[in-house]
Structures are given as structure tokens and as C-alpha cells.
């Protein structure tokens, strides 16, 4: 491709030979949906199908079920274990295809899985988790028959109380192929590359150490497929990540773990992490258990010791220091865009404008809803400002200062669904960063044990080689590609219903939303 040739040539003018020498051919990943069923034989399901010994293997259930719940392998005398997670429950009765009703011997029973009740929490309800799994498996939104309530959680606030006011009929009839979901990340017009991503989201920083290498690589591959980015987090740059350099954000966080000139020079975007919305003012921490030999080697730290990233940067105590810090990175990597990730204190608007005037391309505000099990409970949701307030505050303030179109505003902290993405954008963000949703797609059950990471029961947020081996990269990548595809479709359908050709048109359109606390309509036509 001519454009990529041009890019290569420019790189040589910009970066020293020794840096380019470490560049490896960049791997391509196809944006293709393929089924990626759960890696566990019995995925957690909403319903449990019970087959008693009265079953005569007549095959009626097999014939009647539209969802492939019942399994009868050829050559076997008896039915196998049903695919519980495919079962939509007693609602089949309406369509007359309810296996329990049709079973001549009454051998079938369907009841709610007690694990379904235990699964999830208010923010990530069981339905949301199951629906995300379905999306990660199929690459599409779940069949309505499952009746998952997956557009919102049940937290009683935030995005969960916001709804779009869709018009009865779109103002313009658009075909989804006409709808553009891409956003550009450099709006400064400063001669640095106009990096554009195909979807208005990219992956959040999770270090090697906090998650396994398989998790990191799966994220990276999905980002390649969707021409977006993933972030190294603060734990160094895995060598195995290098074939994805062009889709990686190197994070420079307060501990400076694993940050070297080379890892800054390799990538198109460098992110400064000042704080995390889940735990503002607390720095970062990787508890000793997760500091395995591989982690210790990459961070060049002492094995088994809890690793703390201080708060804040020791070299940045002011806006002018921040500018100096950005200039440093811009000097080291002369093509990089820089992103400034901050949490959402009450004066987040001033922080954002300050970051802009210091030269950042992306202002990334991280609200208080995010955070995995590694963030202390006392901090989560209790310190930072809720992201839905922060987005509006920052968006309006940037506009009032006349610089809104010179900077890309990215929001994160509790973005779970394509609806959350659309809401964040309608509140004023250009795009979002996601974190936990990807973990869920990989099979996370939200057990909140991330901090004792070697024991992540699902082998995602672990550095234990045995546990990490429970997932393979192809499967992980496919799950994320599928999730992204489902979101992409949903986002396009939201835009289509609003009659918008591009996601940029949605930005700041708070008039298209309502807050259930302040509206008489109890329900809406979302």
C-alpha cells in the first residue's frame, strides 16, 4: 500500500536506526467473526435443564428446541449433558416450542440456575455478563428470546439511569454501511500524524503483571483487527507485543516500570497515567503475589515484592512540569501523540484545559465506576467524580475555552456496553476506553479476586503460567473481536435510529437523552 510505504519512509526520518532495527513485521489480524464458545464445558447459564431417568430418548425435545440445548450424539444411547447456557427458559411456551411441555414422559425440568442469582453485582448484572459472553461467543447481540437486560446495569445511577430518546422513525433513513464510527485522535494540527481509529474506543492500560501475557496479546490482536489501540499499562512492554507496535499505546505511569526510550519510540501513542478513577491519589500497586519471576524481570524489580507506583509523578507537581514531561516524550518520539490520563476530581475541567495547554493530544478522564478487584473497595466509586458528570463538565468547559475541537476527549471508568459508549459520546466525549468489559468477554465472572492474581480462577488476571495457559491467544483474540463486532453493530444501529452518519455527530447531544430520575415516563422506547 502506498500510504503504508510512505509511513515507513517517514519513520526512518524520524526515529534512529537502532530503534527501527528492533521493529518487526507488523501482524495483520482479520476482522472476521467466528464462533468462540466458552472454554469451559459448562458455561454458567441462566437456566438449568434437568433430564430425569424417565427420558426414553424419543428425540422430541431435540426436534422442538430452536436453540440447540439438547444434545444427542449419534451412536449414543442416552442424551448428553444439555447445553444449559443456550436455553432461553420457559418463555418458549409462548411459541409453543417449550420442551418441558412437549416431553411425553415429563422427564424434563427447567429451573433457574442458583448461580445466576449469585453472579454479578449492581453494575455488572448477571444479565450483562451473560449477554457479554454471548456477544463474545457469537459476534452479535444475543437473541431477544434470552431476554437479557444488557443495555444497562442496575446501579440506580450513572449510565444506568440515562436513556436515549429515540425518534419513532429516524429523521434520515440510512444504511448501516453509510455510518462512520471512526474518530481521529490528533486534532491539534501540530504536524504529528492524524491517527484515526475505526471504532470510538480503545483498550485500557493493563500491565503484564496485572493480567497474563495471553490476555494482553489477545487484546492487542483484537485492536489490530479493528484498527484501534491497546495499552501496555505500567509493567513494561512485552517483547511478544512487538508485532502489534502500531496498535499499542505505551503507558508512562508514576512508577515508570518498564518504560524505556525504546518502548516510547516504538509506538504511535504514549499515555501518561497520572491517576486512575477507581483509585485516585493512591498510585498503582501490584501485590507481591503477582510479582512472579517474569514480571520481576520485565520490571527489573525484586521478585515477590509488592510493587508500588507512587502518586503523583515525582517530577510533576504543576502544569508547567506536566508540559515539560509531555515535551520530553514528544522529543523522544517525534511522531507520537500523547494522551494524558487523569481521574475526575471536582476541578477536572481545569485539569483538562491545563493538559490541553500543556500540549496533550488526548485528554483521557477516568471516572470512579471502573476498577477491577485490585482497586481498594474503599476507593472505588467513592473518590472520583462520576464519569457522566465529568464528561459534561469537561466537554462544556473545553468548548467555553474555545479549544474543544483541538483536543480529543476520551472517557473511561465503567464503560460496559455499546450503549454506555453512545451515552458517553452524547454527553460530550469523543470516544471511550474500555477495560473490564474485555475481561468479561474473556470469561471473567467479576469475583473481585484480581489482587490475589496468581489465583484468578479464570486465568485472565494472573501471572501464574499454569493458570494463564488455560486460555489461548487465538480464542482470546476471537472473543474480543466478536465482542467488538457486536458493539460495532449496536453502535451503528443506535446512530441509524438517530439518523446520524457519523459518531462525531452524536458528540455532546445531551438533548437526545433523558435521565429517568427527572422524567415522568417510567419506561422509554430504547
Amino acid at each position, binding site marked *: 500500500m502506498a500510504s503504508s510505504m510512505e509511513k515507513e519512509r517517514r519513520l526512518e526520518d524520524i526515529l534512529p536506526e537502532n530503534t527501527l532495527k528492533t521493529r518487526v*513485521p507488523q501482524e495483520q489480524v482479520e476482522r472476521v467473526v467466528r464462533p468462540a464458545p466458552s472454554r469451559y464445558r459448562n458455561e454458567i447459564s441462566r437456566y438449568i435443564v434437568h433430564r430425569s431417568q424417565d427420558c426414553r430418548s424419543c428425540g422430541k425435545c431435540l426436534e422442538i428446541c430452536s436453540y440447540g440445548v439438547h444434545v444427542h450424539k449419534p451412536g449414543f444411547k442416552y442424551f448428553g449433558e444439555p447445553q444449559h447456557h443456550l436455553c432461553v427458559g420457559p418463555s418458549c411456551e409462548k411459541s409453543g416450542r417449550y420442551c418441558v411441555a412437549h416431553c411425553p414422559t415429563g422427564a424434563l425440568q427447567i429451573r433457574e440456575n442458583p448461580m445466576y442469582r449469585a453472579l454479578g453485582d449492581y453494575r455488572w448484572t448477571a444479565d450483562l455478563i451473560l449477554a457479554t459472553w454471548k456477544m463474545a461467543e457469537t459476534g452479535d447481540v444475543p437473541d431477544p428470546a434470552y431476554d437479557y437486560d444488557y443495555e444497562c446495569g442496575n446501579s440506580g445511577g450513572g449510565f444506568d439511569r440515562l436513556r436515549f430518546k429515540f425518534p419513532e422513525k429516524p429523521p434520515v433513513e440510512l444504511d448501516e454501511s453509510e455510518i462512520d464510527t471512526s474518530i481521529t485522535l490528533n486534532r491539534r494540527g501540530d504536524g504529528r500524524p492524524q491517527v484515526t481509529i475505526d471504532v470510538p474506543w480503545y483498550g485500557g492500560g493493563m500491565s503484564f503483571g496485572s493480567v497474563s501475557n495471553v490476555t494482553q496479546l489477545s487484546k492487542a490482536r483484537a485492536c489490530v483487527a479493528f484498527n484501534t489501540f491497546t495499552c501496555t499499562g505500567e509493567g513494561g512492554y512485552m517483547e511478544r507485543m512487538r508485532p502489534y507496535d502500531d496498535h499499542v499505546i505505551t503507558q508512562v505511569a508514576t512508577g515508570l516500570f518498564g518504560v524505556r526510550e525504546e518502548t516510547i519510540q516504538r509506538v504511535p501513542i504514549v499515555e501518561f497515567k497520572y491517576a486512575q478513577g477507581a483509585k485516585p491519589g493512591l498510585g498503582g500497586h501490584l501485590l507481591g503475589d503477582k510479582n512472579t519471576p517474569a514480571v520481576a524481570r520485565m520490571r527489573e524489580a525484586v521478585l515477590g515484592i509488592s510493587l508500588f507506583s507512587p502518586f503523583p509523578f515525582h517530577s510533576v507537581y504543576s*502544569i508547567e512540569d506536566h508540559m515539560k514531561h509531555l515535551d520530553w516524550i514528544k522529543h523522544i518520539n517525534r511522531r507520537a501523540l500523547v494522551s494524558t490520563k487523569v481521574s475526575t476530581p471536582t476541578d477536572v475541567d481545569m485539569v483538562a484545559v491545563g493538559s490541553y495547554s500543556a500540549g496533550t493530544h488526548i485528554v483521557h478522564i477516568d471516572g470512579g465506576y471502573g476498577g477491577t478487584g485490585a482497586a481498594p473497595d474503599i476507593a472505588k466509586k467513592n473518590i472520583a467524580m462520576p464519569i457522566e458528570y465529568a464528561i459534561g463538565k469537561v466537554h462544556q468547559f473545553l468548548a467555553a475555552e474555545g479549544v474543544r475541537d483541538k483536543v480529543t476527549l476520551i472517557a473511561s471508568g465503567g464503560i460496559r456496553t455499546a450503549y454506555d459508549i453512545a451515552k458517553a459520546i452524547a454527553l460530550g466525549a469523543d470516544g471511550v476506553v474500555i477495560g473490564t468489559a474485555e475481561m468479561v468477554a474473556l470469561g471473567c465472572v467479576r469475583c473481585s479476586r484480581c489482587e490475589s492474581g496468581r489465583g484468578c480462577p479464570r486465568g485472565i488476571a494472573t501471572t501464574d503460567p499454569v493458570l494463564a495457559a488455560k486460555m489461548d491467544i487465538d480464542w482470546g483474540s476471537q472473543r474480543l473481536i466478536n465482542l467488538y463486532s457486536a458493539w460495532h453493530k449496536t453502535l451503528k444501529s443506535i446512530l441509524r435510529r438517530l439518523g446520524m452518519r457519523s459518531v462525531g455527530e452524536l458528540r455532546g447531544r445531551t438533548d437526545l437523552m433523558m435521565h429517568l430520575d427527572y422524567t415522568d415516563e417510567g419506561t422509554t422506547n430504547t
Partner: protein
Amino acid sequence: MNSELISRLTDSRKILAESLDYPPILRKESEEGGCGVVGFCCSLPVAGRHIYEPSRQMHNRGNGKGGGIAAVGLVPEQLGVSREILDSHYLLHVAFIDTNVRAEIENEFITPFFDIAASAELDKVDDWKTVPGLEVLPPDVCRYFVRVKPAVLDSFIEKNRLQKHGRDEAEDEFISQNSFSLNQRYYASLGEKRAFVLSHGKDIMILKVVGYAEAIVKYYKIEDLCAHVWIAHQRFPTKGRVWHPGGAHPFAAIDMALVHNGDFANYHSVTEYLKQRHIYPQFLTDTEVSALLFDLFSRTYHYPLEYIIEALAPTTELDFDRLSPERQKTYRTIQATHIHGSPDGPWFFIIARNLARQRKFQLMGITDTAMLRPQVFAFCDGEVQVGLIASEKQAIDATLLSLSKDDRRICPVADRYWNARGGSYEDGGAFIFDLNKDKEGAVRITCTDKFSTPVAMPGGTESCDFSKEFSYSIEAEETIPTLISERFVPGNASAIFEMIRDLIPQSTYDEIHLACRQIINQAKDPSKTSTAIEVLTLLNDRRFTLGTKRRSHVLHIIRTELNLLFLGLSKISVKDAARGAYRLIDFESRSDLREPQGGETTLVINAAHFAPEGDDCDAALLVDAYMKGWRRFICFNCIGQRYSGCGLGPETDEVTIDLYGSSGDYLGSGIDGLTITVHGNAQDQLGQIIKQGRLIIHGDVGQTFMYGAKGGEVYVLGNAAGRPLINSVGRPKVVINGTCLDFLAESFMAGDPLSGGGFVILNGVRLDNDGKLIDLADPYPGSNLFSLASGGAIFVRDPRKTLVDQQLNGGRFAKVTDADWELILPYLEENEKHFGIKVSELLRVKGRQLKPCNVYRKVVPGNVKDIVLEDTDDVWADEPVEEMAATM
């Protein structure tokens, strides 16, 4: 001062505020943080234009949204008044943003209350847009020399029952309250700001604009206005599209002006504290609050300066324990009373004030206890004395250079440069330049710390008169050139250096100059250039006996000649191989950059006109030159440009960079293999995330040196400021010959030194003026050493065992074994090579040669468990990197 008097004063303020309907809710109006601050004082009045160059060089510490200057100790003739009026009358400086209100304000706030001895409108440039660096039209400014009318003052005293106060104090209070009323009416209470008082005090004036500070000098045409003390400030506010000059620094209180670099975390608490004392901010920035605090302690409570500083920056931890019991008692009381009003850092104040009753002016710098903002002090002694304080050393250099151009008696090299250690028992984190006036009005400057202890200046009584041309005796002209040319064999630099060094004590300045000139002449022979550079560099870097001469003056000669040598090298446009291995490039010729050819080895960059950062900085040119194949670099005439040596990428072992002049922040941050030598002091954020390579610093280094470093070999002749080597991992090896302010190697994680991990050797010594090794009082005075460290070690030269357990937070002392000594000895030997600090001297204590284990102490992590984990290489796993690269 007794409490009744205090309460009468504060009560009067309460009544005033109530009468003006002072609003109860306060919110800090703007966020700002790091700013550029500079202050200097001179025993002679010096012109305003000297604030221009340092201000310009601090542009990158402001954003052009606010700048200000203050001057104290003016020249009466220039203001059109007599000395008597200047000394006795208040100089009221009022800014009119809306010029229509002037008559109204004069009728209401000035003529009814004051006897006006003189008044004038400040001259200004006709078209403000012709002055670069201005954002909006600056206000019109009028100055009034006033005294309060006796009858007005009488009734003020009567009304507020201030009879027991001195009449002069009551007058101060009246002036202050009158300005408060004016500001409240015409500034604070309005959406549309109209006018405000810039300054009110005797022999002091403040000017501020929305723009850069140096624009003031041009706009108000004060290039030639002279004063003893000047301070300037570049501001970086981040909120609001409309700014008012009122928010810019300096802020005034009676007889004082204050600039501030930093940002309070507890603005609200401090304003509450002030409110309880009936003091009400009007401009809603933390700088105003700082000036109000200082004024409260000084004018209401009558605290001596030491107590004021203690109230602002409390002494804590080990430093508190090391105070005398009497001081502890007093300080405890001060802290108990005023801790809520103590600004919670980061902050650094520069304050200029006039102590009319004591016939002196004062310039001081105070840093917060945590030392989170950069600060440098300097002093130039001699016939004309100059004291300087700045946020960056290059601002000091720029000021001195500018001053020396006007008055050749001022040497561009200061006698001493130093940092304050915030809230410490040694200097209290503050230094004060006192400008004492004798009977004739002549001024001499003394410099003391918080505890009134004078700052020792290096010896040397004989000054060089730079106003005269150098002239050589016939005898010298015969002997010196011959001596040098005879001995001048390429590669023989150290022998030539030693010869000249030994001659210097009995030589005159002229003879030293002649010797340097002779070396330059030798350099014209391409085969001798590098040796000549080396000799002059050694003369610049090393400490040796100078006889009665001043080191700063000798250094100035050497540096000037070295610069001449560099400037005389062949330009980059010259492609003739016979013209030697060096090629000179400067800002004008930067586009001529090309690949090295023939025998060309070294690119010499004249950094003078390069930008401090961005595409036009010398560090960017250096990267381009490296990419074109240059491997050796000399940068001279540096004026604080940043990022030197950064961006060259991995595997740069063959690269060397030598820096002369004022090197800048982030030097060598990220380097991977190359060697950088700084021939002088270095600034902040050096060697961050350095992977490998060498840094050799012939001076001190600033804040957060080697933060997050992964490796590298670093030698520092002098001290490191606060927080060196925080969060370092891997295998950095560092020798610091002086000491550190505090927090050395916090969270150090650099493995096991005996099996390749990192360590720091802290020698706790300094070289005196004759190059003799002197033990510092404490090898490490800070309260926190190696806190929370989990790897690596610190080797502290501490023969007197002054380090105590309380300084270690998680670390513990361990014996220095033979293996340890074998480990560190090569680094001490290398250190000897760079700085001439002999290992044998380090081991000599009170004249006796001791065993290493009795001289050095080792600090190791205290509680590291032995962990055995299965090692699986799953991150770098079977990645055929080389092959993949080859297939590209």
C-alpha cells in the same frame, strides 16, 4: 506583641470587611502551578532591563497569561522626587483597567485621605500591540507618593482604638485598609474589573500584565529604571479565556512583594485560617494568600523572620529532633498555633521587602518542607555584590550575564550556587539577602539563612577587574607561551593541566588569561585541538589552589576562552578534511547539517539561540545529527535547553556528549548506552528511566535525579537535590560525592548489588576552594533514606556514625564486607579519575587511614523475604527477534 493590640488590629479589619459586604464563599479562581520566578538584588541600583533576559528564558515556565515584576530600593531622581520623600512616603501604585474611573477613585480614595507629595502616570508605549508578549492592553498605572493626613489618621486611630500602637503602624494599617476598600469596590466585587492597587509601601513598586513579564519592561519603558532589588514572575494559569492583570504575581502587602512558584493543596484551609483573623483575600489565588500570611505574621504578630518562616514551613521529623531544646519549645508553640495556616506545598516564595525602620532592603527565598519546587540561590561577592534566587539556574546565569555587560565589576560566574533544604535544622529552607544601608546610603549585602547564620563564601580576596583589557608583562609574554608550546604534545592534556594548575597560585589573572590564550592558539593546529579542549576543560572542572584569587573570576576567564576556542572551530559548511575533526554548527547554520565526512568526528553545537524544547531545540538537532552519523558532540553556550541526549534510542554506546554552560532539565533521561559529561551544575529530572550509559556531572544535580532509572553509571561531584533515584530498578550504579536533600532512593528495587544489582555510594564530602576534601557535617541530613526499598544498597561514607535508625524507614544497617568493598572500589576509582577525589583520601579520617568497613556503612532493605518461584520465561518466550528483523 500583646494580644490586646493584636485583637484591636484584627477587629478593625473585621469592621471594615463587614462594612464592605465581603462575600462569604471563596473559591480559588485559577489553577496554576509551576511558574518561572527570579529575584535578584545588587548593592548598586541596577536597571530594569536586567530582568528582561532571565524572564525571557523562563518563557516555558509560563504561558503568557500573566507576568509581573517588583522593584525595591528605587532611585529618587528617576521618580522625580527627593530622597526624603522616597524614604518617608508610601508609594501607592494603582492600576486602571478602565481609565474612566481614575478621577472617581482619586476623589474617593486618595485625595480625601492623603497628602500627596508627588504623583505621575507611568509612561508607556503608544501601541501595546507592538510589544511582543502582551495578550491584552495593560492597565494604565499611576503612582502617588502619599502620607495619611494627620487628622484622618487621628480619627482612624480613635475609631479603632489603636492608641497603643505606634503611629507609623497605624498609618500602615490605614494604607492597607484603604487599598482593601478600593480593591473591593473596583475589582473583587465586580464581574467587569476596573481598577486595583498594585502595591502600597515605601520605596517599592509592582507592575503586572496579562502577558510575559519582560513585556512590562518594554511597555512601561522601565528599561533604565534602577532599583536595588528586582523580582519577576512568569505565570501559567490554566482557566478562563479572560484574564486580568490583578491575578498575576507579585502580590503586595505593606512594604513587600511576593512571587510564588507552586500550588497549595490547602488553599481553603488557609483562607479559613485567615478569615478567623479577619483577613480576606480579594484576588483568589494562593499567591495573594501567601502575601497576606506573611503580612499577618510580620505586621500583626510582629514575629521575627525566623518565626515567620517556621510558621510557613514547619520543621519536622529528624530535623526537629536536631534543633536545640529551646528552639523545639518555641517551634512547637508556633506549629501548634499556626499549622492550619501553613501552606501545604508545593511552593517556593521569593519575597522582596523594604524594612524602612531598620534601613535595609531584603530579598529572600523560602522553600516548602517537602522541597517540591526547584530553587537555586547564588551570590556574587566583591566591590559590587549581587544576590540571586531563581527557579532555574539558567535564569541566574542570564541575569548575571546581563548585569556584567553593564558593570564589568560583576562577574558572570557567581562565587557560590546552592539550594535550600526545606524545613531543615541546618538552613531552615530559607536564605535572606540583607541590603544594609550605611549612613551615606551605600549598600552592602549579607546573606544568612533562617537561623541568621551567615552563608560562607569561598575564599579569595583578589578580584579581577574585567572592565580593563588584559595586559601582559613582557616577562610573561616571553615565558608563558614558550612554556606551553614546548609542553604541548597531543594526548598530554593532564600533564599540561597539571603544569598550569601548579603555576596558577602565583600567577596574576592576566597571566592566567595569557596561558588560556596560548592554549587556544595551539588548538588552531587540528592535531592539537582535542588536547587544548581537554586542558581547558580540566581547568574548568577541577578544584585547585588559586592563591588569593577568586575562583569565580578564574572560572570566568577559563570559560570565556574555552568558548572562544569553540567559536573558532571550522564551520559545518567547511568540507575540507585538513581542517580537523571538529565542525561547528549553530542556530543559523542548522539547516547545513550533513553527514560527517573524512576525519570529522565531533559536532560542536553552539546552543546559544536554540529553543528550550520542541523542533528548534539543540537536543532535536543532536538527534538529527546522530541519525546522520555523528557520534561525538560538544554543546556549549547552553542556556537551560532541555532533553539533551534524549531520543537517540538503544545501543548508543559509542556516543559521547559534552555540555558546557547551563544545561537543562531532563538531561539524559532515557539514554541507553551513551556518555554525557556535564561540565558544571546540572538541573532537574536528570537521567530518568536511564537504561545504560554514563553521566558525569562536575557539579550538583537537581530534583528527582534518576527517577525510575533502570541502570547506568553516574558520577556526581556535588550534591543531589530532593528525591534522587526514586523507584529505581535494575542496576543503576551511582556515586554522589556530596549529599542529598532528602528521600534518597525511596522504593529502590535494584536487586542484589553483589549479583549485578544497583547501589548508591554517598560520600558526604565536598571540595574546598583549594581542592581539599572536607567532610560534610552530616553525610546525609535528610529524615528519609532508602525508605520502602526492596533491593539494592546504599553505601554511605559515615566514619563518625552520624546516620541513625530513625532515618531509615524499612532499611537496616549492614556490615561492609570485603565483597562489598571489591564491588564498590572500581566505581570509587572511576570517581577518582573524573573528579580527582582519591580513594585513599576518602579512607583517611582525622589523619588516619582506616579500613573501608570502618569508613563506609551499608544500608540494605530491611524485610525482604526469600522467595523461590518457578521461573518461566513467558514474556520474552521464543521470540526470534533477530530473524524477524532480518526479514524486514
